[in-house]
């Protein structure tokens, strides 16, 4: 999967980190110190549909379907998350209890064209 550089326009993962101190949430969230709110951005020309970030066999199958059915004009592909990972959070609830929970699929790790 690609990580966005300054001028990449193909589907890639743009990293962005929100520090809880910047938004004043470090008083009730004990850990972590911030949240990696990565997101997917970029174009998905049809010939890269089903890649990167997915099995190349899947991309080949999609590519052949696109060619065989000549859907070059109407079909389109979107830049979407293809792999995510959980986020463990330790925080105070409104009764000042400490709560620990693992939130599944919270951080985008890889992007690809649907």
């Amino acid at each position, binding site marked *: 999967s690609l990580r966005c550089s300054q001028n990449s326009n193909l589907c890639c993962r743009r990293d962005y980190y929100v520090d809880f101190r910047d*938004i004043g949430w470090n008083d009730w969230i004990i850990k972590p110190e911030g949240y990696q709110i990565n997101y997917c951005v970029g174009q998905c020309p049809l010939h890269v549909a089903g890649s990167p970030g997915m099995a190349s066999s899947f991309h080949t199958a999609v590519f052949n379907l696109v060619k065989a059915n000549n859907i070059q004009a109407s079909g389109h592909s979107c830049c979407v998350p293809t792999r995510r990972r959980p986020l463990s959070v330790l925080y*105070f609830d409104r009764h000042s209890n*400490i709560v620990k*929970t693992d939130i599944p699929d919270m951080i985008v790790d890889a992007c690809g064209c649907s």
Partner: protein
Amino acid sequence: AAAEPRCPACAAAAERRLLEEAAKRQLLEKLRLRERPKLIHAVPRAAVARALRRLQAGGARRGPEEEEEEEERSYEIISFAEPEPRSPSGLGLRFQFSHTQDQDIHILQAQLWLYLRVPQDLVTSLTLRIFPAGGEGEVAGGNRTLLSEQQLRARGSGWHTLTLMPTLQSFFEGEGRTLRLELEGHGDGGDIMAMVNASWSHQPFLVAKARLREPGHHMAKR
């Protein structure tokens, strides 16, 4: 962002505001909170550090049942005791839990951590009683439901762990949100109050491991 004036710095600031709001929304939604909690009283840092270290040391091993039901969200909750005015026969420690009506909470494990400061050469025995407490004033007298009663023997100062599992499960299914514990000393145990909250870095706390099921969960599974 398109409406914002065309300058690189403005675009970056707009992106930052946008992503900070998105981060807040995502976290609140995933933690099932309507808004960020407003902390009524701050818990002493020492008490927080001590409780987390305790939790780490006595970390619960994951049973096969938990591994098998991985997709249901599990929570570990540490609730610090709020001392109440002394009741006739001991010390009340109030804990507060809250969950919305449509959440089905299943308690997997629950333990009470109690630090007793007992002179080295003394052996004392205590009776621990647990009651649900409804509104603020429903403490003294009145017919209260005894959830659990346990005997405890202490030789010298130290932490004591008491398993509360069956008690908490029934408590959580009821309406009550506050759990009240009372301690009663036997023999020349001296002043219970002095024993339990000798210093606030040894604040008693409750550790509960719970699993949350949303309504219609089984339908989604099917």
